[in-house]
Protein backbone atom coordinates (compact mmCIF):
# COMPACT_ATOMS: atom_id res chain seq x y z
CA UNK A 1 0.00 0.00 0.00
CA UNK A 2 1.31 3.42 -0.94
CA UNK A 3 1.37 6.00 1.82
CA UNK A 4 -0.25 9.14 0.40
CA UNK A 5 1.18 11.39 3.13
CA UNK A 6 2.59 14.50 1.55
CA UNK A 7 1.83 13.39 -2.02
CA UNK A 8 -0.64 16.24 -2.58
CA UNK A 9 -1.02 19.79 -1.41
CA UNK A 10 -3.55 22.61 -1.17
CA UNK A 11 -2.36 25.41 -3.45
CA UNK A 12 -5.36 27.71 -3.46
CA UNK A 13 -8.18 28.69 -1.17
CA UNK A 14 -11.08 31.07 -1.25
CA UNK A 15 -13.79 32.21 1.13
CA UNK A 16 -16.86 34.31 0.49
CA UNK A 17 -18.10 36.99 2.84
CA UNK A 18 -20.25 35.03 5.32
CA UNK A 19 -23.36 35.74 7.39
CA UNK A 20 -26.51 37.08 5.80
CA UNK A 21 -26.17 37.25 2.02
CA UNK A 22 -29.56 38.28 0.63
CA UNK A 23 -27.65 39.42 -2.48
CA UNK A 24 -26.55 35.87 -3.24
CA UNK A 25 -28.00 32.50 -4.29
CA UNK A 26 -26.78 28.99 -3.56
CA UNK A 27 -25.31 28.84 -7.06
CA UNK A 28 -23.69 32.26 -6.87
CA UNK A 29 -22.05 31.48 -3.53
CA UNK A 30 -20.44 28.37 -5.01
CA UNK A 31 -19.17 30.37 -7.99
CA UNK A 32 -17.94 33.18 -5.73
CA UNK A 33 -15.95 30.63 -3.70
CA UNK A 34 -14.50 28.98 -6.83
CA UNK A 35 -13.49 32.36 -8.26
CA UNK A 36 -11.81 33.44 -5.01
CA UNK A 37 -9.96 30.11 -4.87
CA UNK A 38 -8.72 30.21 -8.48
CA UNK A 39 -7.67 33.87 -8.14
CA UNK A 40 -5.74 32.94 -4.99
CA UNK A 41 -4.03 30.09 -6.85
CA UNK A 42 -3.34 32.29 -9.87
CA UNK A 43 -4.89 29.93 -12.42
CA UNK A 44 -7.82 29.90 -14.82
CA UNK A 45 -10.82 27.58 -14.70
CA UNK A 46 -9.58 25.97 -17.93
CA UNK A 47 -6.53 24.70 -16.03
CA UNK A 48 -8.71 22.83 -13.50
CA UNK A 49 -9.59 19.25 -14.44
CA UNK A 50 -11.59 18.06 -11.43
CA UNK A 51 -14.38 19.32 -9.20
CA UNK A 52 -15.93 17.93 -6.04
CA UNK A 53 -18.85 19.40 -4.17
CA UNK A 54 -21.85 18.69 -1.97
CA UNK A 55 -25.48 18.92 -3.03
CA UNK A 56 -27.44 22.02 -2.07
CA UNK A 57 -29.72 21.13 0.84
CA UNK A 58 -32.64 22.99 -0.67
CA UNK A 59 -32.32 21.79 -4.26
CA UNK A 60 -31.23 18.18 -4.90
CA UNK A 61 -29.46 17.56 -8.23
CA UNK A 62 -28.52 14.43 -10.16
CA UNK A 63 -24.96 15.76 -10.35
CA UNK A 64 -24.34 19.17 -8.90
CA UNK A 65 -20.58 18.74 -9.44
CA UNK A 66 -21.08 18.44 -13.20
CA UNK A 67 -23.45 21.40 -13.31
CA UNK A 68 -21.15 23.54 -11.22
CA UNK A 69 -18.08 22.57 -13.28
CA UNK A 70 -19.67 23.83 -16.46
CA UNK A 71 -21.15 26.92 -14.80
CA UNK A 72 -17.55 27.74 -13.82
CA UNK A 73 -15.99 26.89 -17.19
CA UNK A 74 -14.31 23.72 -15.93
CA UNK A 75 -14.19 20.62 -18.19
CA UNK A 76 -13.74 17.91 -15.56
CA UNK A 77 -11.99 14.57 -16.00
CA UNK A 78 -13.17 13.79 -12.48
CA UNK A 79 -16.31 15.11 -10.74
CA UNK A 80 -18.76 13.91 -8.14
CA UNK A 81 -21.02 14.99 -5.30
CA UNK A 82 -20.08 13.68 -1.90
CA UNK A 83 -22.64 13.15 0.84
CA UNK A 84 -21.27 12.89 4.36
CA UNK A 85 -22.99 15.87 5.94
CA UNK A 86 -20.47 18.02 7.79
CA UNK A 87 -17.70 15.53 7.05
CA UNK A 88 -18.07 16.26 3.33
CA UNK A 89 -15.60 19.15 2.89
CA UNK A 90 -12.70 17.08 4.29
CA UNK A 91 -13.86 13.99 2.39
CA UNK A 92 -13.71 16.06 -0.81
CA UNK A 93 -10.05 16.88 -0.27
CA UNK A 94 -9.36 13.22 0.52
CA UNK A 95 -11.10 12.09 -2.69
CA UNK A 96 -9.19 14.72 -4.65
CA UNK A 97 -5.89 13.30 -3.36
CA UNK A 98 -6.95 9.79 -4.35
CA UNK A 99 -8.05 10.91 -7.82
CA UNK A 100 -4.80 12.78 -8.40
CA UNK A 101 -2.70 9.85 -7.21
CA UNK A 102 -4.76 7.51 -9.40
CA UNK A 103 -3.91 9.66 -12.42
CA UNK A 104 -7.51 10.65 -13.10
CA UNK A 105 -7.00 14.39 -12.60
CA UNK A 106 -4.20 16.82 -11.80
CA UNK A 107 -5.85 19.90 -10.35
CA UNK A 108 -9.08 19.53 -8.40
CA UNK A 109 -11.26 22.22 -6.87
CA UNK A 110 -13.25 21.24 -3.75
CA UNK A 111 -16.09 23.68 -3.13
CA UNK A 112 -18.87 23.92 -0.59
CA UNK A 113 -21.44 26.68 -0.07
CA UNK A 114 -24.72 27.05 1.76
CA UNK A 115 -27.54 29.55 1.92
CA UNK A 116 -29.25 28.80 5.20
CA UNK A 117 -29.67 32.23 6.73
CA UNK A 118 -31.66 34.11 4.10
CA UNK A 119 -34.35 33.02 1.67
CA UNK A 120 -33.29 31.11 -1.43
CA UNK A 121 -36.19 30.07 -3.64
CA UNK A 122 -35.33 27.09 -5.83
CA UNK A 123 -37.25 25.05 -8.40
CA UNK A 124 -36.18 21.75 -6.85
CA UNK A 125 -36.69 19.59 -3.81
CA UNK A 126 -34.80 19.58 -0.54
CA UNK A 127 -32.61 16.68 0.54
CA UNK A 128 -33.88 14.86 3.59
CA UNK A 129 -31.73 13.55 6.41
CA UNK A 130 -32.98 9.98 6.10
CA UNK A 131 -34.82 8.66 9.13
CA UNK A 132 -36.77 11.66 10.32
CA UNK A 133 -40.04 9.69 10.07
CA UNK A 134 -38.71 7.57 12.98
CA UNK A 135 -37.98 10.67 15.05
CA UNK A 136 -40.38 13.48 14.21
CA UNK A 137 -43.61 11.70 15.31
CA UNK A 138 -42.23 11.91 18.86
CA UNK A 139 -41.25 15.55 18.53
CA UNK A 140 -37.54 15.05 17.80
CA UNK A 141 -36.82 17.49 14.99
CA UNK A 142 -33.43 19.08 15.31
CA UNK A 143 -29.70 18.45 15.21
CA UNK A 144 -29.68 20.22 18.58
CA UNK A 145 -31.72 17.29 19.92
CA UNK A 146 -29.32 14.62 18.69
CA UNK A 147 -26.36 16.44 20.18
CA UNK A 148 -28.26 17.12 23.40
CA UNK A 149 -28.60 13.33 23.80
CA UNK A 150 -24.80 13.09 23.55
CA UNK A 151 -24.30 15.97 26.00
CA UNK A 152 -26.66 14.32 28.50
CA UNK A 153 -24.70 11.05 28.26
CA UNK A 154 -21.38 12.89 28.61
CA UNK A 155 -22.69 14.61 31.72
CA UNK A 156 -23.93 11.28 33.12
CA UNK A 157 -20.78 9.30 32.38
CA UNK A 158 -18.13 11.90 33.19
CA UNK A 159 -19.74 14.62 35.29
CA UNK A 160 -19.44 17.27 32.58
CA UNK A 161 -21.52 20.41 33.20
CA UNK A 162 -23.08 23.18 31.13
CA UNK A 163 -20.38 25.52 32.51
CA UNK A 164 -17.72 23.15 31.17
CA UNK A 165 -19.28 23.30 27.69
CA UNK A 166 -19.38 27.10 27.96
CA UNK A 167 -15.57 27.25 27.87
CA UNK A 168 -15.67 26.01 24.27
CA UNK A 169 -18.21 28.68 23.28
CA UNK A 170 -16.40 31.51 25.10
CA UNK A 171 -12.97 30.73 23.62
CA UNK A 172 -14.42 30.29 20.15
CA UNK A 173 -16.25 33.62 20.40
CA UNK A 174 -13.01 35.33 21.44
CA UNK A 175 -11.37 34.03 18.27
CA UNK A 176 -14.32 35.23 16.19
CA UNK A 177 -13.96 38.66 17.79
CA UNK A 178 -10.53 38.85 16.13
CA UNK A 179 -11.80 37.73 12.70
CA UNK A 180 -13.13 40.42 10.37
CA UNK A 181 -15.13 37.79 8.43
CA UNK A 182 -17.06 36.41 11.41
CA UNK A 183 -20.76 36.76 12.16
CA UNK A 184 -20.76 37.05 15.98
CA UNK A 185 -17.85 39.13 17.29
CA UNK A 186 -19.04 40.43 20.66
CA UNK A 187 -17.09 38.63 23.41
CA UNK A 188 -19.10 36.14 25.48
CA UNK A 189 -18.87 35.68 29.24
CA UNK A 190 -19.74 32.65 31.34
CA UNK A 191 -22.76 34.62 32.54
CA UNK A 192 -23.86 35.28 28.94
CA UNK A 193 -23.64 31.57 28.21
CA UNK A 194 -25.48 30.47 31.34
CA UNK A 195 -28.18 33.10 30.80
CA UNK A 196 -28.75 32.11 27.19
CA UNK A 197 -32.07 30.37 26.76
CA UNK A 198 -32.42 26.62 26.79
CA UNK A 199 -32.94 25.24 23.27
CA UNK A 200 -32.92 21.49 23.84
CA UNK A 201 -31.82 20.75 27.39
CA UNK A 202 -29.05 20.36 28.31
CA UNK A 203 -27.93 22.55 25.36
CA UNK A 204 -28.42 26.32 25.51
CA UNK A 205 -28.53 28.82 22.67
CA UNK A 206 -24.79 29.55 23.02
CA UNK A 207 -23.99 25.84 22.74
CA UNK A 208 -25.49 25.94 19.23
CA UNK A 209 -23.88 27.03 15.97
CA UNK A 210 -25.12 29.56 13.45
CA UNK A 211 -27.18 29.23 10.30
CA UNK A 212 -25.21 30.98 7.60
CA UNK A 213 -24.88 32.02 4.00
CA UNK A 214 -21.47 31.68 2.43
CA UNK A 215 -18.96 29.29 0.96
CA UNK A 216 -15.37 28.29 0.53
CA UNK A 217 -13.14 26.33 -1.80
CA UNK A 218 -9.68 24.81 -1.90
CA UNK A 219 -7.55 23.69 -4.84
CA UNK A 220 -5.66 20.39 -4.58
CA UNK A 221 -2.77 19.26 -6.79
CA UNK A 222 0.27 16.98 -6.59
CA UNK A 223 3.19 18.05 -4.38
CA UNK A 224 5.31 18.22 -7.52
CA UNK A 225 2.99 20.61 -9.35
CA UNK A 226 2.44 22.58 -6.15
CA UNK A 227 5.85 24.24 -6.65
CA UNK A 228 4.49 26.11 -9.69
CA UNK A 229 1.84 27.96 -7.69
CA UNK A 230 2.46 31.43 -6.28
CA UNK A 231 1.47 30.93 -2.64
CA UNK A 232 3.00 28.70 0.00
CA UNK A 233 1.59 25.20 -0.51
CA UNK A 234 0.03 23.32 2.39
CA UNK A 235 0.81 19.62 2.43
CA UNK A 236 -1.87 16.98 3.07
CA UNK A 237 -0.12 14.73 5.59
CA UNK A 238 -2.82 12.49 7.00
CA UNK A 239 -6.40 11.49 6.20
CA UNK A 240 -8.99 9.29 7.85
CA UNK A 241 -12.72 8.60 8.08
CA UNK A 242 -15.03 6.56 10.27
CA UNK A 243 -18.80 6.31 10.28
CA UNK A 244 -19.65 4.14 13.29
CA UNK A 245 -23.44 4.31 13.09
CA UNK A 246 -26.19 5.76 10.95
CA UNK A 247 -28.89 7.06 13.25
CA UNK A 248 -29.49 7.56 16.97
CA UNK A 249 -31.27 4.19 16.86
CA UNK A 250 -28.15 2.17 16.04
CA UNK A 251 -25.43 4.23 17.75
CA UNK A 252 -23.39 1.94 20.01
CA UNK A 253 -22.37 4.98 22.08
CA UNK A 254 -22.81 8.75 21.84
CA UNK A 255 -19.70 9.67 23.86
CA UNK A 256 -17.06 8.15 21.57
CA UNK A 257 -17.68 8.96 17.93
CA UNK A 258 -16.06 8.38 14.53
CA UNK A 259 -13.24 10.76 15.42
CA UNK A 260 -11.34 8.10 17.34
CA UNK A 261 -10.67 5.69 14.48
CA UNK A 262 -10.67 8.46 11.88
CA UNK A 263 -7.87 10.31 13.68
CA UNK A 264 -5.92 7.11 14.34
CA UNK A 265 -5.85 6.46 10.59
CA UNK A 266 -4.76 10.04 9.92
CA UNK A 267 -2.04 10.06 12.60
CA UNK A 268 -0.68 6.74 11.29
CA UNK A 269 -0.57 8.02 7.71
CA UNK A 270 1.18 11.22 8.79
CA UNK A 271 3.53 9.53 11.25
CA UNK A 272 2.50 12.15 13.80
CA UNK A 273 0.79 12.20 17.21
CA UNK A 274 -1.60 14.56 18.98
CA UNK A 275 1.41 16.19 20.66
CA UNK A 276 2.67 17.37 17.25
CA UNK A 277 -0.48 19.42 16.54
CA UNK A 278 -0.06 23.19 16.99
CA UNK A 279 -3.72 24.00 16.40
CA UNK A 280 -7.01 22.18 15.88
CA UNK A 281 -9.91 23.25 13.68
CA UNK A 282 -12.55 20.94 15.15
CA UNK A 283 -16.13 20.69 13.90
CA UNK A 284 -18.23 22.58 16.42
CA UNK A 285 -21.86 22.38 15.36
CA UNK A 286 -22.43 22.26 19.13
CA UNK A 287 -20.00 22.76 22.01
CA UNK A 288 -20.33 19.09 22.96
CA UNK A 289 -19.17 18.01 19.48
CA UNK A 290 -15.86 19.81 19.91
CA UNK A 291 -15.37 18.41 23.43
CA UNK A 292 -16.01 14.80 22.36
CA UNK A 293 -13.74 15.20 19.32
CA UNK A 294 -10.87 16.63 21.40
CA UNK A 295 -11.08 13.45 23.50
CA UNK A 296 -11.45 11.15 20.49
CA UNK A 297 -8.41 12.80 18.86
CA UNK A 298 -6.28 11.95 21.87
CA UNK A 299 -5.62 15.48 23.16
CA UNK A 300 -6.86 14.24 26.53
CA UNK A 301 -8.37 11.04 27.89
CA UNK A 302 -12.03 10.16 27.39
CA UNK A 303 -14.08 12.11 29.89
CA UNK A 304 -11.35 14.70 30.56
CA UNK A 305 -12.51 17.12 27.87
CA UNK A 306 -14.25 19.15 30.55
CA UNK A 307 -10.88 19.96 32.13
CA UNK A 308 -8.91 20.19 28.89
CA UNK A 309 -11.02 23.11 27.60
CA UNK A 310 -10.30 25.26 30.69
CA UNK A 311 -7.50 27.62 31.72
CA UNK A 312 -6.93 29.04 28.25
CA UNK A 313 -5.60 25.76 26.87
CA UNK A 314 -7.80 25.97 23.74
CA UNK A 315 -7.44 29.74 23.27
CA UNK A 316 -4.83 31.49 21.08
CA UNK A 317 -1.63 31.52 23.11
CA UNK A 318 -2.60 28.27 24.84
CA UNK A 319 -1.46 24.69 24.31
CA UNK A 320 -3.89 23.89 21.47
CA UNK A 321 -5.69 26.87 19.92
CA UNK A 322 -9.10 25.56 18.86
CA UNK A 323 -11.06 27.05 15.97
CA UNK A 324 -8.93 30.14 15.49
CA UNK A 325 -11.50 31.58 13.04
CA UNK A 326 -14.47 31.41 15.38
CA UNK A 327 -15.83 28.09 14.17
CA UNK A 328 -19.38 27.16 13.37
CA UNK A 329 -20.38 28.57 16.74
CA UNK A 330 -19.40 32.18 16.02
CA UNK A 331 -17.87 32.66 12.56
CA UNK A 332 -20.33 30.86 10.25
CA UNK A 333 -21.79 27.38 9.76
CA UNK A 334 -20.66 26.17 6.37
CA UNK A 335 -20.28 22.51 7.35
CA UNK A 336 -16.63 22.98 8.21
CA UNK A 337 -15.43 24.20 4.82
CA UNK A 338 -13.95 27.23 6.56
CA UNK A 339 -12.18 25.01 9.11
CA UNK A 340 -10.09 23.87 6.13
CA UNK A 341 -9.48 27.32 4.66
CA UNK A 342 -8.57 28.63 8.12
CA UNK A 343 -6.03 25.82 8.57
CA UNK A 344 -4.52 26.69 5.19
CA UNK A 345 -4.25 30.36 6.17
CA UNK A 346 -2.66 29.52 9.53
CA UNK A 347 -0.04 27.33 7.80
CA UNK A 348 0.72 29.94 5.15
CA UNK A 349 1.58 32.13 8.10
CA UNK A 350 0.74 35.59 6.78
CA UNK A 351 -2.96 35.62 5.94
CA UNK A 352 -4.91 36.18 9.14
CA UNK A 353 -5.09 39.15 11.47
CA UNK A 354 -1.72 39.12 13.35
CA UNK A 355 -3.38 38.59 16.75
CA UNK A 356 -5.11 35.50 15.34
CA UNK A 357 -1.96 33.85 13.95
CA UNK A 358 -0.63 30.73 15.69
CA UNK A 359 3.10 31.56 15.90
CA UNK A 360 5.30 29.51 13.59
CA UNK A 361 2.45 27.13 12.71
CA UNK A 362 3.81 24.05 10.93
CA UNK A 363 1.17 21.37 11.48
CA UNK A 364 -2.46 21.24 12.49
CA UNK A 365 -5.49 18.97 12.47
CA UNK A 366 -8.96 19.52 10.99
CA UNK A 367 -12.13 17.55 11.68
CA UNK A 368 -15.51 17.14 10.00
CA UNK A 369 -18.62 15.58 11.55
CA UNK A 370 -22.02 14.93 10.06
CA UNK A 371 -25.49 13.46 10.36
CA UNK A 372 -26.80 12.18 13.68
CA UNK A 373 -23.24 12.26 15.11
CA UNK A 374 -22.66 9.54 12.54
CA UNK A 375 -20.05 10.55 9.98
CA UNK A 376 -16.50 11.72 10.63
CA UNK A 377 -13.47 12.78 8.56
CA UNK A 378 -10.02 13.95 9.66
CA UNK A 379 -7.17 15.70 7.89
CA UNK A 380 -3.69 16.63 9.11
CA UNK A 381 -2.11 19.52 7.23
CA UNK A 382 1.46 20.82 7.28
CA UNK A 383 3.34 23.85 6.00
CA UNK A 384 5.67 23.10 3.08
Amino acid at each position, binding site marked *: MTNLSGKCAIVGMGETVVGKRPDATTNSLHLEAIKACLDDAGIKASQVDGLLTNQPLNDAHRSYATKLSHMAGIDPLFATDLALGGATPIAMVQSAVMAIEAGMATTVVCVHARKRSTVDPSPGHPIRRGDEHWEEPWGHFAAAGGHA*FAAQRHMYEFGTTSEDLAHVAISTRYHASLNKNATLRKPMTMEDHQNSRMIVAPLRLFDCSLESDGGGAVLVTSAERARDFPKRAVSILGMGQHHPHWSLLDAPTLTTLGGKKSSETAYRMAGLTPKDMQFAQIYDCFTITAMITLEDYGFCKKGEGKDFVKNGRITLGGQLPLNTHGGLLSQAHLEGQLHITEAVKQLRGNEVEPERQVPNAKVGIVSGHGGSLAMHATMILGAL
Partner: protein
Amino acid sequence: MSKDERGRATRRGQPFLEEPEAKPFWANLREHKLTAQRCSSCQKIFGFPPQSHCPHCLSNEFKWVELSGKGKVYSHIAYHRAWHPAYQDKVPYNVSLVDLEEGGRLVTNVVGCAPEDVKIGMNVEVIFEDTPDFTLPKFQPVK
Protein backbone atom coordinates in the same frame (compact mmCIF):
# COMPACT_ATOMS: atom_id res chain seq x y z
CA MET B 1 -41.14 16.42 0.22
CA SER B 2 -42.36 19.96 0.70
CA LYS B 3 -40.14 22.78 1.91
CA ASP B 4 -40.29 25.99 3.88
CA GLU B 5 -39.50 29.52 2.67
CA ARG B 6 -35.79 28.98 3.26
CA GLY B 7 -35.86 25.83 1.15
CA ARG B 8 -35.53 23.40 4.03
CA ALA B 9 -37.46 20.16 4.20
CA THR B 10 -40.74 20.72 6.02
CA ARG B 11 -40.84 18.93 9.33
CA ARG B 12 -43.76 16.67 9.88
CA GLY B 13 -45.22 15.21 12.98
CA GLN B 14 -46.57 11.98 11.55
CA PRO B 15 -45.06 8.57 10.87
CA PHE B 16 -44.78 7.27 7.28
CA LEU B 17 -47.35 4.50 7.55
CA GLU B 18 -46.83 3.29 3.96
CA GLU B 19 -43.16 2.36 4.47
CA PRO B 20 -43.32 -1.27 3.19
CA GLU B 21 -40.91 -2.77 5.73
CA ALA B 22 -42.64 -1.00 8.62
CA LYS B 23 -46.31 -1.68 7.82
CA PRO B 24 -46.61 -4.60 10.31
CA PHE B 25 -45.03 -2.47 13.06
CA TRP B 26 -47.69 0.23 12.66
CA ALA B 27 -50.53 -2.30 12.18
CA ASN B 28 -49.56 -4.21 15.37
CA LEU B 29 -49.45 -0.95 17.31
CA ARG B 30 -53.10 -0.38 16.38
CA GLU B 31 -53.77 -3.55 18.43
CA HIS B 32 -51.57 -2.23 21.24
CA LYS B 33 -48.75 -4.63 20.53
CA LEU B 34 -45.16 -3.41 20.39
CA THR B 35 -43.40 -5.71 17.92
CA ALA B 36 -40.04 -6.11 16.25
CA GLN B 37 -38.45 -8.43 13.71
CA ARG B 38 -36.60 -11.45 15.09
CA CYS B 39 -34.11 -13.05 12.69
CA SER B 40 -34.93 -16.70 11.96
CA SER B 41 -31.26 -17.40 11.36
CA CYS B 42 -29.29 -15.69 14.15
CA GLN B 43 -32.32 -15.11 16.44
CA LYS B 44 -31.37 -11.48 17.11
CA ILE B 45 -33.81 -8.59 17.12
CA PHE B 46 -33.31 -6.44 14.01
CA GLY B 47 -33.72 -3.07 15.72
CA PHE B 48 -35.45 -0.06 14.19
CA PRO B 49 -36.40 1.07 11.61
CA PRO B 50 -37.59 -2.28 10.22
CA GLN B 51 -35.74 -3.55 7.14
CA SER B 52 -35.79 -6.45 4.70
CA HIS B 53 -32.56 -8.19 5.82
CA CYS B 54 -31.10 -8.82 9.29
CA PRO B 55 -28.52 -6.13 10.16
CA HIS B 56 -26.56 -8.76 12.13
CA CYS B 57 -26.32 -11.61 9.56
CA LEU B 58 -28.13 -10.39 6.37
CA SER B 59 -30.68 -13.20 6.47
CA ASN B 60 -34.00 -12.20 4.91
CA GLU B 61 -36.03 -14.58 7.05
CA PHE B 62 -37.62 -13.14 10.15
CA LYS B 63 -40.74 -13.18 12.30
CA TRP B 64 -42.57 -10.28 13.85
CA VAL B 65 -42.55 -10.94 17.61
CA GLU B 66 -44.26 -9.12 20.43
CA LEU B 67 -41.86 -7.42 22.86
CA SER B 68 -42.27 -7.15 26.63
CA GLY B 69 -42.54 -3.38 26.30
CA LYS B 70 -39.93 -2.92 29.02
CA GLY B 71 -36.85 -0.83 28.50
CA LYS B 72 -34.29 1.55 29.96
CA VAL B 73 -33.62 5.20 29.17
CA TYR B 74 -30.27 5.48 27.31
CA SER B 75 -30.44 9.28 27.13
CA HIS B 76 -33.05 11.99 27.42
CA ILE B 77 -33.50 15.62 26.42
CA ALA B 78 -36.10 18.34 26.87
CA TYR B 79 -37.21 20.45 23.91
CA HIS B 80 -37.68 24.05 25.07
CA ARG B 81 -38.22 25.26 21.51
CA ALA B 82 -41.00 24.06 19.23
CA TRP B 83 -39.76 23.18 15.74
CA HIS B 84 -43.30 22.25 14.70
CA PRO B 85 -46.53 24.19 15.30
CA ALA B 86 -48.13 21.16 16.98
CA TYR B 87 -45.58 21.43 19.81
CA GLN B 88 -46.04 25.14 20.50
CA ASP B 89 -48.09 24.49 23.64
CA LYS B 90 -46.14 21.42 24.75
CA VAL B 91 -42.67 22.83 25.52
CA PRO B 92 -40.76 21.85 27.50
CA TYR B 93 -41.32 18.21 26.59
CA ASN B 94 -39.23 15.09 26.94
CA VAL B 95 -37.74 13.04 24.12
CA SER B 96 -35.85 9.89 25.12
CA LEU B 97 -33.83 7.12 23.57
CA VAL B 98 -35.23 3.94 25.10
CA ASP B 99 -33.28 0.67 24.81
CA LEU B 100 -35.76 -2.20 24.73
CA GLU B 101 -35.27 -5.31 26.86
CA GLU B 102 -35.00 -7.69 23.90
CA GLY B 103 -32.87 -5.33 21.79
CA GLY B 104 -33.57 -2.37 19.56
CA ARG B 105 -33.97 1.28 20.48
CA LEU B 106 -36.70 3.83 19.87
CA VAL B 107 -36.78 7.60 19.81
CA THR B 108 -39.83 8.15 21.98
CA ASN B 109 -41.32 10.15 24.84
CA VAL B 110 -41.26 9.29 28.51
CA VAL B 111 -44.60 10.55 29.81
CA GLY B 112 -46.30 10.45 33.18
CA CYS B 113 -43.54 12.44 34.88
CA ALA B 114 -41.96 15.87 34.45
CA PRO B 115 -39.12 16.10 31.89
CA GLU B 116 -36.64 16.85 34.70
CA ASP B 117 -37.60 13.63 36.51
CA VAL B 118 -36.53 11.43 33.60
CA LYS B 119 -33.12 9.87 34.34
CA ILE B 120 -30.59 7.82 32.39
CA GLY B 121 -30.98 4.14 33.30
CA MET B 122 -34.59 4.61 34.43
CA ASN B 123 -36.80 1.53 33.92
CA VAL B 124 -39.74 2.33 31.69
CA GLU B 125 -42.66 0.44 30.13
CA VAL B 126 -44.62 1.00 26.97
CA ILE B 127 -47.99 2.71 26.76
CA PHE B 128 -49.96 3.25 23.57
CA GLU B 129 -51.15 6.66 22.43
CA ASP B 130 -53.95 6.38 19.90
CA THR B 131 -54.70 9.07 17.33
CA PRO B 132 -57.36 8.78 14.61
CA ASP B 133 -54.78 7.56 12.05
CA PHE B 134 -52.03 5.76 13.96
CA THR B 135 -50.81 4.60 17.36
CA LEU B 136 -47.52 5.76 18.87
CA PRO B 137 -45.55 3.76 21.43
CA LYS B 138 -44.56 5.97 24.35
CA PHE B 139 -43.13 5.01 27.74
CA GLN B 140 -43.82 5.67 31.40
CA PRO B 141 -41.69 5.04 34.48
CA VAL B 142 -42.15 1.56 35.96
CA LYS B 143 -44.01 2.06 39.20
